[in-house]
């Protein structure tokens, strides 16, 4: 991916319709020069992983505010493993309690961004981590 723009799929898994955060992040990443594919609402983990593979994404950002993150983030991480696509960096955000973060990290979510995270932090994180892999 040298010299290429970072490609990020921003996804809303599950039934949650709160898309304010996902859309703000998608736009901020775009403004930072990344290529962003926003999936729209109500995507199954299967659909999200398919999109990530088809789009040759470097990272997948998941946003959930409904409390279903343990189920749905886990499923996305599992499916990426099944497709041998663990190199796709998974990050997430939403209303996610502190105590869930280590569990999510264990299953392969690289980073959880809690409420009031700045978009700059997310951009810096992606740039730092995706450059390491080059």
């Amino acid at each position: 991916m040298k010299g290429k723009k970072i490609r990020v799929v921003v996804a809303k898994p599950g039934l949650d319709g709160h898309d304010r955060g996902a859309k703000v992040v998608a736009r901020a990443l775009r403004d930072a020069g990344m290529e962003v594919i926003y999936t729209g609402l109500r995507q199954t983990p299967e659909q999200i992983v398919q999109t990530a593979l088809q789009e040759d994404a470097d990272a997948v950002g998941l946003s959930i505010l409904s409390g279903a993150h343990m189920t749905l983030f886990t499923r996305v991480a599992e499916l990426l493993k099944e497709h041998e696509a663990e190199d796709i960096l998974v990050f997430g955000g939403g209303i996610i309690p502190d105590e869930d973060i280590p569990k999510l990290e264990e299953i392969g979510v690289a980073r959880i961004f809690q409420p009031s995270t700045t978009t700059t932090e997310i951009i810096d994180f992606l740039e730092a981590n995706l450059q390491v892999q080059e």
Partner: protein
Amino acid sequence: MKMTGADKVSSKTSEPEKSADTVSEQRYQPFYRPEDLADLGYQRDLGDPGEFPYTRGVHSTMYREKLWTMRQFSGFGSPEETNRRSKFLLEKGQTGLSIAFDLPTLMGLDSDNPFSEGEVGKCGVVIDSLEDMEILFEGIPLDRVTTSMTINAPAAVLLAMYVAVAEKQGVDPAHLSGTLQNDILKEFIAQKEWIYPPEPSMRLVVNSIQFCTQHLPRYNSISISGYHIREAGSTAVQELAFTLRDGIEYVEWCLRAGMKVDEFAPRLSFFFDSHNNLFEEVAKFRAARQLWAYIMRDRFGAREKRSWMCRFHTHTAGCSLTAQQPLNNVIRTAIQALAAVLGGTNSLHTTSMDEALALPTEAAVQMALRTQQILAHESGIPDTVDPLGGSFFVERLTQEVEGEARKYMETIDGMGGMISAIEKGFPQREIQEASYQHQRAVETGEKLVVGVNEFQTDESPPVETLRIGPETRKGQCQRLDKLRSRRDTRAVKRALSELKEAARSDKNLMPLLIEAAKEYATLGEICETLKEVFGEYREPSF
């Protein structure tokens, strides 16, 4: 609209001035004088409280006679758990119930639907069938409490279940009071929990309003909501404008269905957010009443006073709560609650300090309720109606908010109404833009958020949070299995096929929804049946 002396009362005046297209962005004058109100006509723009155009309040005595209803939004887990929380709140002195439903219920899906995995009972109570509704209100006589139900796409189905429970409790539906949110337009605009495309969705709304007009005369058949629009990132003016324009759309549809404006308009109710900018919020509430009174009287020719009144519920701003230093949220909520009360709200929900982290605990909910009780019983605010009326600043701001909102509504009129504006993505884009600009302002430090981009501390005190485990879904799935084997399958099938038949005609669907609910057809089965006729909505991408 003229804007003079554009100096913001702030130490940060070095920022370049942005296009001041909304009041949220505009710079205030350092102070206001009688000349700023030169255009203000007391009778035309304000009126006494209880008099047209109700800017100062819908009642002449307001809280002197009757305090606002303290209505905490609550619901999680199984129907049993929410029943217990409701009883807890009633015991603590809350005067009305407000039920939150989980996502599968909001989307018309049963707990055993694969899409419901991980979501059952998470952000509200789960309702799969009338059986759950019976448990939810067990020991709560429906003629003695007012219940607000936050449900939209399947609102007509939940209303049908509510009526069925009342009948089982021996309560005459005519004695039911409360509010059904039932506002599908703001779902398309902001909250995004839709099922059917706009036209059949609007039909369900009109059917339920018509049914309530005939059979539930004390029940608010819709709560036209700005809350979700604001939470999605809109400005105060956008919240007001889109909400009232949604209101216009509902009135037009009801009129087209042959209803008379004064038959249904008195039961239209509204629902607003209360955010941090105290005076702008007060101005918004006052402007809402003024605008709606003129819309109803002049645009729709309503004659009944109650048709002119914008009665509304207020919910303090969930999106203003910070995960950092959560105790600070107690203060934010108190200021927002103050704005709502100074703005003459009819009922109020105060958010809990831990809601940026998870569902609130009982202790946090109790503190939120106590905030309202202190305002009601210790502050002295209820003694005088519209205590800020006549303030040069607040009156001027009220007129500015009103004028800006009116412009937005005219733009939407020009697009052919709200449904057409939604199809064009207009309100959605406006909100997205405002939300992005807000985020940028926070990140550049132009907007200061205490504990977030200034005055940070390293330690975050652990806040106890409430968790809903997977056992809720398991329990519901077992209950559904039992229900499906116990109920009269033929009667369910008949009720659903009659419903489908009626959906193809222009009949009011409410009586058939009640029949289906009474036969214990599940929410998912009922919504699926209607999907076969109405289809499903897909959001265009913006």
